[in-house]
Structure formats: structure tokens, C-alpha cells
């Protein structure tokens, strides 16, 4: 890091230490959770500024029934992003199923799954937010163009703004400001968050992923609080526009449509998911294999929901680091490296 950056970081931290009133700032996005942990940013902040991790880890909020639905499939290859394979369903994980003979393959992009489908019946585990969804929608268009018969996607896509709305509508929620996601906002545009200010009088700043930007973002949120005027600011203008990525939005609209979705820990949130449109039904694994994704109970004792809402910090869960740890995650927040519990386990113990 350049010397000038280090000096700036020092000044930012000194400045933040001037702030005495307790505030709670939520970083929505799992990648921000990672950067905060990786750079030990919490250890640099004064006790008055509390960072809480929100629902922006796609793996964490994927319901158990999604995993269980995949586990019922026979004689197919399941293609999935890596961090999903240790997420527990009620009936086990994909990793355990792989050891018992299920053909589970880790892919880095949905197009890779399409390649696998050229030789075998393949189901792609379709999870993700606005960032990953356009790529998967594009893959479905490709599958249609290639007239593939042995490719389908099990959809559990989610969108961030409705989740924030549901979160702020929860009783007793106390969030003073948001560090808004960088990558998601590239697609949605900054205008998508204006309702935070209009309906909930809460501001936020769209941030990139450098530690220095995150510290600056925290300072910007504190400045908003000082002025008492919440607003949506964009500190990631290089890539985030007001309207977002219109072609990506169009591709999503062409293939997918809003529907209610289940979020692990948060429950059912109206119009927060994206399902596959009727014209593409042949690629919808729910239809093809008659699967169901429903609300499922959290493992007993797991307080992931309270963690995602910012009511408690992971170490306040009685199971944290005792029976629940990354090798044996009880709840979803411990599974992905982006999950709040896993990030705490790794970086803040």
C-alpha cells in the first residue's frame, strides 16, 4: 500500500475515534464482510461504532429445502458454486452426498455447467444475487439456443432491495446506516436504494472493496448521522451508475420474473426472488423433477436469523465455536467464508 494511503488511513481512523455516540452500521454484502475481517477493520474502530453483517451472503440465505431438493435427484450431475457444498440441508450436505456417490461438481461459472451438460444430464444449483443472476439468465438463453434437453437450473435467486425493506420493517430493528453492496449495485444502480431514505429515513453509501474505501464509507455514514440528513451516496462511481446495468437488467427480465422467496433466517419475503419464466419451463428443475422449495426450520439453537438482522453478534450465539464451527456448521452463517459467523470465527476470535 502506498505511503500516502497509509497516512490517509491513519487520519480516517483518528477522525472516527472522535465519534462517541453508539451507532450500528450494517454491511449488506458478504464480500464487504470478508474485507472487514481480512483487514482487521473492526479492531481499528472505536467501541462506539459497531459493524453488523447483513443478509448479503447468497449461500447463507439459501434455504435448507433447496439443498434437500438437490439431494433427492438421482442419476444427474449437480453443478454448483463451491461454497454451497458444505451448506447443511435437513438431510445432509452435497459434500456428504458426493462422498456417498452423487455426482457433484464444483464450477466457477454457469457456462461451465452447460459444457458438462453436453455429455450428461446436468442440474445447476442456481443461487445468487443480482451479481450472478445475469450470467445464469444468459446461460439459460444459451441452453435454449443450443436446444439442450439435459440441462436445467434449480432457481433460488434473490434480490437485495426487497430484503433490506423486509429487514427495516422488522420490529425493534436498530440500523443507523448501510454500507451498500458494490457488485450488486453495478447491476441495480444506486436509485434502487432511494426507498431506504424515503420510507425508512435511513441512509447508506455504496462502497467498493478496498479497505481505505470502506473506512471512508464508514466516515461518510457518520457524517450523514452528524448532519441528521440520511441519503444514498455512491462511493463506487467508477462502476456504479444511477440506473445500473440496463442490458443485464433486460436479460434478467427476459428469462426470470419476481416471486416470493424463502431466505434462511429471515423467512418468506414477498417478491424478493426471481423464478424462471414459463417460456423457459423446460430448463426449470423444479418443473422437470417436480421439486419443492419451502420454508424450513433453522437447526435448533442456531441464531443465524438474529445475526442476519443484526440483533446479536455471532459470538453471542451459544453454539458459536462450541458445536458450530466451519468443519461442522450448524447454521448457514458458518458455512460460506462470507457468512458472518464464519468470518467472525476466522478473523475475530
Amino acid at each position: 500500500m502506498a505511503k500516502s494511503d497509509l497516512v490517509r488511513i491513519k487520519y480516517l481512523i483518528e477522525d472516527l475515534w472522535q465519534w462517541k455516540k453508539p451507532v450500528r452500521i450494517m454491511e449488506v454484502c458478504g464480500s464487504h464482510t470478508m474485507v472487514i475481517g481480512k483487514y482487521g477493520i473492526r479492531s481499528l474502530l472505536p467501541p462506539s461504532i459497531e459493524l453488523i453483517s447483513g443478509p448479503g451472503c447468497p449461500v447463507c440465505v439459501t434455504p435448507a429445502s433447496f439443498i434437500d431438493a438437490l439431494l433427492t435427484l438421482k442419476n444427474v450431475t449437480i453443478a454448483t458454486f463451491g461454497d454451497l457444498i458444505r451448506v447443511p440441508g435437513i438431510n445432509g450436505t452435497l459434500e456428504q452426498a458426493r462422498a456417498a456417490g452423487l455426482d457433484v461438481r464444483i464450477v466457477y461459472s454457469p457456462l461451465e455447467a452447460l459444457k458438462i451438460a453436453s455429455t450428461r444430464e446436468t442440474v445447476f444449483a442456481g443461487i445468487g444475487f443480482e451479481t450472478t443472476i445475469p450470467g445464469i439468465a444468459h446461460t439459460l438463453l444459451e441452453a435454449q439456443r443450443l436446444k439442450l434437453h439435459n440441462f436445467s437450473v434449480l432457481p433460488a435467486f434473490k434480490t437485495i432491495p426487497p430484503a433490506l425493506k423486509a429487514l427495516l420493517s422488522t420490529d425493534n430493528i436498530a440500523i443507523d446506516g448501510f454500507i451498500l453492496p458494490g457488485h450488486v449495485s453495478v447491476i441495480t444502480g444506486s436509485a434502487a436504494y432511494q426507498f431506504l431514505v424515503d420510507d425508512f429515513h435511513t441512509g447508506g453509501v455504496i462502497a467498493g472493496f478496498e479497505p481505505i474505501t470502506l473506512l471512508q464509507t464508514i466516515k461518510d455514514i457518520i457524517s450523514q448521522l452528524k448532519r441528521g440528513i440520511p441519503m444514498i451516496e455512491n462511493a463506487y462511481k467508477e462502476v456504479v451508475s444511477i440506473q445500473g446495468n440496463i442490458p443485464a437488467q433486460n436479460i434478467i427480465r427476459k428469462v426470470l420474473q419476481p416471486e416470493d422467496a424463502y431466505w434462511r433466517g429471515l423467512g418468506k419475503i414477498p417478491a424478493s426472488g426471481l423464478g424462471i419464466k414459463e417460456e423457459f419451463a423446460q430448463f426449470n428443475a423444479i418443473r422437470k423433477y417436480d421439486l419443492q422449495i419451502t420454508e424450513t426450520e433453522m437447526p435448533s439453537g442456531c441464531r443465524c436469523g438474529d445475526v442476519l438482522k443484526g440483533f446479536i453478534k455471532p459470538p453471542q450465539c451459544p453454539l458459536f465455536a462450541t458445536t458450530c464451527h466451519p468443519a461442522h456448521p450448524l447454521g448457514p452463517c458458518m458455512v460460506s467464508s462470507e457468512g458472518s459467523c464464519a468470518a467472525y470465527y476466522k478473523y475475530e476470535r
Partner: protein
Amino acid sequence: MKDEIITLAHGSGARLTQQLIAEIFAPHFHLPALTDSVAIGHNLVVTTDAHVVKPIFFPGGDIGKLSVTGTVNDIAVSGAQPLYLLATFIIEEGFPISDLKKIVASMQEAALEAGVKIIAGDTKVVEKHNAEGIYITTTGIGTLPLDLHLGTDKIKNGDLIIVNGNIGDHTIAIINARNELDLQPPPRSDCAPLNGLIACMLPAADLHFMRDATRGGVATILNEVFEDNGLGIIIDEASLPISAATLAVSNLLGLEPLYMANEGVIVTFAAADTTGLIPAMKKHRYGKNAALIGKVTSDVKGVFLRTTIGSLRPLPMLHSDPLPRIC
């Protein structure tokens, strides 16, 4: 063991592998210590290592080269001179002879470079689909100078921690080759026999301990050292030698180079007053990027990373392989 079947995580080299050895193997075998190689008699050192890699051929090496260098390095980090190898092949029915020829030729080339002889072996062929391509196990034998003893018990407060080259390159080369990330130019594995480099290092400084940072990477070794002798370690993130390509891909996939497997990286603990070691290493072709990455210290309890922005955060042992994240 809670999970009643073996999963891939048991082979990751992280906490679950340790558990497997401690709970399943150790009670039935005679395992003096959890090291890469073991001394028998006065000055003989032996080690054995099974090699499975997908794809079998990758930029910078192949399974044959790996099977020689991996075992040579396990012997060499004890300070011993590797002399002989024995090799066992498990081959899947249908495997192309032309590929086998290539693999054996690259074993010969690596053995020649390392100055070891492959003196015996065994071959088994299994039915199609009962193995994937080819697996190679090599056993190595070396001799240890009588006056030399390297071990975690020799590490002291103030010791310098040094690596010989870029970390993470092997893992990124394999991920790229396996998933066709199409990086141009394709990143190359660091796979190399390091006994020549180590021979240059031994006379250059008072070395206390060496280990090759294969599965589990540099961070896992540091944690094993801490668990062995209870001495704290601080690593300086800014000083880590990491290539630009490896850094870019690991940021993209949410993986940390410090936990990535290497095939040509050794972590060395040397006396606090060491001066000539890094210059000596830089003269060797496998030590060009040698760097001082941290120190043993009583300031902390555990393994910690001084981040590029100056904060201190834990660098713990991982339970299992880190998973690439959805991005």
C-alpha cells in the same frame, strides 16, 4: 469422528487431516511425530507420499514430476540429502501408454535434476472407472549429516521466517488448468526439487526448522509450529511474495494465497541474527523471490497477520479446504 464417512475435506491437509491421523492412524501405528519424514537408525531418513492430481498434465509440471519433487522436498527439508526413490503406480485400465511415457520421462528428468535414483517400483492396473487415470506413490530415502538437527524444538523467540519464492502459484495453475479460467498466459506451477537450494542454505545460516508448504499452505505450517512449541508468530502481509496473477485470481475467488498448496515453496525458521541467508538464496534459481515474511515473537499468542493497513488479525488453522466462493 463425527462424520462417519471420509469426505474430500479429510484430505485437505488442514485440521480434519490432522484429526484423521491422530484418531484413526496413530493409535494403531508407530508414529513418532507428525513430520514429513522420519529418521531411522543413525542417519537414514525416509518418507512416502501419494500423488493424485487433476489434470495429470498442467503448466509447469505433471504428476510424474510432482511425485519426484514432492518426496525429494519432504526429505530435503529435514536437512538430509535425498538419494533413492521407490515408485508405485496405480493405473486405470485404458490409460494411454503415450501419456505414461511422458510421465515417466518427466520423472527421470526431475530425478536427474535432484540427483536421486529411482531404484524400484510396483505397478497395478485397476478396472476402468475404479481409479481416475493414474496415481503415483513414491518413497524416498536420504542421509542426514550426523551433526545436523532441525526441528520445531529449536525455534526461538526472535527467529526470522523466510520463504524462498512466490506463494500460491501451484494452486492457481491447477485451478486454471482444471476449470479453464483461460488466463493468458496460463499460470505455471512452482513444482521443483528444492534439495539444491537447501544445500546452499545450510552453510549460509543457523537454520532451526524447515518445511515445504504443500497442502494447507504456509499458514498451516505456521500454526503447526505454534501448536508444537507455543511460540507466537507475526507475519507481515506487505512482505509476502505473491505474483500479480495469483493475487488477482485469489481475490476473485475469495481464496487466500497463505492457505494455498505449493510444490516449490519452503518455509524456513532461522536464527534472529541471520544476515547472509536471503542473498545466498537469491543466487539459486529456486530462491529468486526469497523474502523475510515474519518473525517469532512473544508479543502474541498464536499466529497473526500484520495487514497492509497496519491492523493485526489472527491467521488461524483452517478446518478444511477453503471453498471458492460464488462470485
